[in-house]
């Protein structure tokens, strides 16, 4: 079992800085997801950990070994690629065993491991087929199997599910989670899909422009996003944002936006807030409820724009001072909705961001 330690990585292609001082540590047995929009450097970071890309400065440690200058196969890791990258002229069996044959593993051991992986991934009936004779989901399982037979301490996944349709993706997600729990290996997993990140990860590293914006467990990333970017990227629909100003008053800090005045709880701040500041208040769609009358907390009224039924939930979109607010409702409650409604935000769960820097206060 070995963890990964990435220290002050920098990498540029010509004048474009892909990775900026990336520094994080993955404990042994952890499932870390690198999450971010395309072009944020997450795949490059994975390639650097794998040894497929060189870095300009910084170090990569796997276990206690500095592997920065090592070839990929000397690092004790296996990788699954987005395009599956199966060897097209080899059967499934030979695809699975290729890495073992290259590394001169004894024949009986090769056969034992191939049988084990094929059994684990339900590939046994198709061991003698070529990749072109398999469906997308089967190819993906072969690609995962090819990594598993190596029996290495670290596995890297580069957007492995993005070529699958929605149903298969859900199935494979569960499969990967089960594999991680069964094998107890260390996994670094790249995706731009926030649902994959939330469901699979023990910790998520949200990346933007070659930097890690937040590195925390999924609940923290969701409930207490470290920046406006993280808040808007994680969650669907995104967190609601209201621009306004923070005032320090005797009873505590107060958020003002137009004629909306919301007293804030001190618990939402990591550090004591400044007296006066332009801020953005963020609140999740499920942290706003429709108040039948005057509730205990502050309320405000907003005009209903439209309703989006999603099945289990319904999202109601309101107009507030020119901005859109989404509220998560039960479908029954949504049916009675018309015109305007009184909204009651749960301010204990609000996030306050500095409008200038975008960082959480």
């Amino acid at each position, binding site marked *: 079992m070995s963890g990964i330690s990435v220290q002050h990585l920098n990498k540029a292609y010509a004048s474009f800085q892909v990775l900026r001082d990336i520094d994080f540590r993955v404990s042994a047995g952890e499932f870390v997801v690198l999450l971010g929009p395309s072009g944020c450097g997450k795949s490059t970071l994975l390639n650097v950990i794998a040894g497929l890309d060189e870095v300009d400065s910084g170090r990569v440690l796997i276990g206690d070994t500095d592997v920065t200058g090592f070839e990929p196969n000397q690092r004790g890791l*296996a*990788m699954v690629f987005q395009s599956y990258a199966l060897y097209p002229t080899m059967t499934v069996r030979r695809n699975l065993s290729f*890495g073992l044959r290259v590394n001169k593993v004894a024949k009986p051991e090769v056969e034992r491991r191939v049988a084990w992986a094929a059994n684990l991934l339900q590939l046994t009936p198709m061991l003698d087929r070529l990749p072109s004779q398999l469906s997308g989901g089967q190819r993906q399982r072969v690609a995962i199997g090819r990594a598993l037979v190596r029996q290495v301490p670290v596995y890297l996944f580069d957007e492995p599910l993005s070529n699958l349709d929605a149903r298969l993706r859900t199935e494979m997600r569960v499969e990967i989670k089960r594999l991680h729990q069964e094998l107890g290996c260390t996994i670094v997993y790249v995706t731009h899909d926030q649902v994959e990140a939330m469901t699979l990860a023990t910790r998520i590293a949200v990346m933007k422009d070659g930097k890690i914006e937040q590195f925390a467990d999924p609940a923290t990333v969701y409930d207490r996003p470290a920046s406006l970017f993280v808040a808007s990227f994680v969650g669907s629909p995104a967190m609601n944002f209201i621009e306004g100003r923070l005032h320090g008053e005797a009873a505590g800090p107060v958020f003002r936006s137009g004629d909306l005045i919301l007293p804030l709880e001190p618990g939402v701040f990591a550090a004591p807030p400044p007296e006066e500041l332009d801020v953005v208040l963020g609140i999740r769609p499920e942290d706003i409820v429709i108040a039948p009358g005057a509730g205990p907390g502050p309320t405000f009224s907003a005009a209903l724009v439209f309703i989006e039924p999603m099945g289990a939930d319904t999202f109601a979109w309101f107009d507030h001072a020119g901005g859109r607010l989404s509220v998560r409702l039960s479908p029954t409650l949504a049916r009675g909705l018309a015109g305007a409604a009184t909204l009651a935000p749960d301010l204990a769960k609000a996030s306050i961001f500095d409008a200038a820097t975008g960082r959480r206060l």
Partner: protein
Amino acid sequence: MTDNNSPAFPFAFSAAQARRRRCGSRIALYLFLSGAAVLFSIPLLIMVLTSFKSMPEIRQGTIFSLPAALDLSAWVKAWSGACTGLACGGLSVGFWNSVRILVPSVVLSILAGALNGYALALWRFRGAHAVLTALMLGAFIPYQVILYPLVKIFSFLHLYSTLPGIIVIHVVFGLPLMTMLFRNFYAAIPAELVKAARVDGAGFFRIFFEIMLPMSTNILIVALILQTTGIWNDYLLGLIFAGHDNQPMTVQLNNIVTNGTGIVEYNVNMAATVLTALPPLAVYFLSGRYFVRGIASGAVKG
């Protein structure tokens, strides 16, 4: 346009009109194609006919008439008895010389080109672009320009007028085209395949021989046809670099046909020419199907 009576397409052709149009253009197409086929096959036909005639028959000047009897003596003489200067061993000597030059030249030039193309397309090493540009330039320089320096270099290396010498020449001159052909083919292969193999622990040559080469059947056959035809039909390089003992079939054919002494044996010359042209033709006929498939696969996808 499945429903011809549909008023939804008032300006569409009726089925009969369309059929007539299609039929007309078909006829024109076939006329043109068969015309072209006749034009190209007349010289070949005259050659084959003449080669089966006896000399008295040829002197009558009826070049389009069929031979009176199937006389194979000209073919036998062309293969084993025609004279080039003082030697009268026929074309067979040149044929085996050509085979000795062709086989290693084709194998080595394709292998080198494939390896080059693979390295240029899938291993982005420093200076790859400069190497490619240099190779492109190489493909466009007419080789007559560099013949003299090459002769000097080869004689300095003691390769001039030797079998290895002419093989090296063919491999070197084949390299730009072969490299380009394979580079374009391998450029269409996803780079992740190489990455996956590297993570699996395979090195440069192992990836080439175990993964890339087995995927390259179609393009290998294209390369095989191009190189076989090119090297077999080569005259200038063989004349200059092969030396007297290794003269290829084309050079010997020229010597037979332009032999100044005695009467001109048209039937023998024709038979000799057809014999010399046969091997590339055979390669085309045997692998033409793969040739088309290979060119298409190289152009459209990996």
